[in-house]
């Protein structure tokens, strides 16, 4: 009988990898460090997903259900991997509860960590209560409480969304584009306009990267149907006059400094490498690429390959990734893992 597969991480990529292996009759052990499956969309309480518009708890929830309902898959929550030794289709793994496993291949679906906005103090997060992150706005929407200013619970009349918070910023060592924040911000802007039609939403951007069809469904829809306004300006600082938040910067298209009052400022936070990536790199003996994400091996020979033969990777562990692509990568990494174990047996 062939050895089981180890999938590390129970987010969209991990759920997809485990499901793909499970339905093909392979035994899977799915290890998740948190106490429940679902990854960022569930743990961080996302609202409606881009681009499907489905609620995260329904869309990702159904992926969780089909994994927990599959007899070939063993789910271990609140568990991490402590040690790993092996090669050639024979990996010995020690878990955090000191159980040991022998698996034929490993798929890392260890995801990302949201950028922590306190690392950009000039934009007021942590100083002013009404400066929040996209994740917090997602939670306001998904919890049903609605978008409100945290300081006093009032409905905001004017919201600024600042793009590229923790992305494309050499000053803080994050040179990458987080890829999804533009579309997510446009989505949030539309949700705010839908819930609060009298609230005006301004998006401050340097470039807009609502790639592919998202151009129509998010960038233009937000402007044409929802009258969201986009201003080409990188904000210099967020302060307060005691009553409102004051957003300062330069409107680069009219070459003018701006000092505009807002009720609420939203940071479109980017995707950092998983904070555990150094540890993961040493435990699994895989290289990290220059930004700290898990490095990919030859993408054309074997989808999802890492620098360690027999260990595969999928989703945002490899760099900023969309949910849809993470799911696709989970499935392709599963295929690569099967191919690998068959060639070893």
């Amino acid at each position, binding site marked *: 009988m062939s050895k089981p597969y180890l999938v590390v991480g129970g987010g969209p990529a991990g759920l997809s990898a485990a499901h793909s292996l499970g339905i093909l009759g392979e035994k899977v052990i799915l290890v998740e460090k948190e106490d429940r499956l679902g990854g960022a969309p569930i743990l961080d309480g996302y609202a409606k997903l881009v681009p499907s518009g489905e609620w995260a708890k329904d869309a990702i929830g159904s992926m969780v259900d089909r994994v927990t309902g599959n007899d070939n898959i063993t789910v271990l929550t609140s568990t991490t991997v402590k040690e790993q030794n092996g090669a050639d289709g024979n990996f010995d793994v020690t878990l955090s509860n000191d159980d040991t496993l022998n698996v034929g291949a490993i798929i890392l679906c260890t995801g990302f960590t949201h950028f922590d906005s306190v690392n950009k103090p000039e934009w007021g997060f942590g100083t002013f209560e009404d400066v929040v992150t996209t994740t917090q706005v997602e939670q306001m929407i998904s919890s049903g409480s609605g978008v409100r200013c945290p300081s006093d619970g009032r409905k905001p009349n004017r919201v600024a969304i600042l793009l590229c918070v923790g992305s494309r910023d050499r000053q803080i060592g994050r040179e990458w584009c987080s890829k999804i924040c533009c579309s997510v911000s446009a989505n949030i802007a539309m949700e705010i306009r839908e819930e609060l039609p009298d609230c005006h939403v301004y998006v401050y951007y340097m470039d807009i990267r609502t790639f592919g069809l998202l151009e129509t469904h998010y960038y233009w829809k937000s402007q044409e149907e929802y009258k969201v*306004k986009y*201003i080409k300006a990188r904000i210099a600082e967020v302060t307060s006059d005691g009553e409102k938040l004051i957003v300062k910067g330069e409107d680069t298209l009219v070459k003018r400094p701006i*000092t505009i009052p807002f009720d609420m400022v939203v940071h479109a936070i980017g995707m950092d490498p998983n904070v555990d990536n150094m540890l993961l790199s040493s435990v699994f003996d895989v290289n990290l690429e220059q930004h700290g994400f898990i490095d990919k091996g030859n993408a054309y020979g074997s989808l999802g390959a890492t620098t360690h033969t027999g260990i595969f990777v999928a989703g945002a562990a490899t760099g900023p990734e969309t949910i849809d692509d993470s799911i696709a990568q989970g499935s392709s990494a599963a295929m690569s893992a099967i191919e690998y174990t068959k060639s070893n047996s």
Partner: protein
Amino acid sequence: MPIHEKSLIRPENIKTHDELVIDGIDVSGHWSTFIESRVISDYNEALQEEISALPGGENIHRCFQCGSCTNSCTVNALNSEFNPRHWIYLIRLGMEEELLRDKDILWQCVSCNKCTYACPRDVAPEGVMKAASHWLELKGHTPKSPSTLFDTVFTDQVMETGLIEESRTIRGFFGLTNQSLTQGWLIEMVKRMIRHLPIEMLMKMGLATILRPKTKNWDAARDAMREYTAEQHALHAKALKLDQVTPKENN
């Protein structure tokens, strides 16, 4: 003043004080010239909606600031201050004060429609210029332009009679724009017409001036047109919040 890009500084923002002491430091005179920053301190959120409510402005929200309109613009080629792309941006974001700085050139669009064909987003910038000029007039920022006055005289006459009687149009237009009817070129034109036009045509023209003929059964058409234009005017006034008249004005 050896300042880079001095042309970008607005004269009213240059401040020199004959006597000024700040924190015990004397900053009087020419050597302590201050330049006030041209800060944008607020947005007028109604501006885009107001302009898009006027004919021609409907598609302004589609603009992505590529500059094809300005690049193709006939007037811009002659006056680089005439920049449709820039005004569309100001309108979209509600920078009313900035827009009003250009109120005396904004209406100079010649409606050649090169921008209409160049625009990749179907904004119809020519229409936006029309709507913006219209907005300036309705809000009282600029007097009615000669072309608006001409249109008014012309359409009023068409609506009233179903016909155009040129001398009446000219008299009406000259009256509204305070132009003399005894200008040399006009007198010369009339003289030549009398000299060279066939008698029959001259008589017809003379009679038309006196009798003011009307298209047969015109009244129904006139009423329908008047009703429609009144409706449109009311809609525009409402969109621009000009209908909120005080009781005093109402009487």
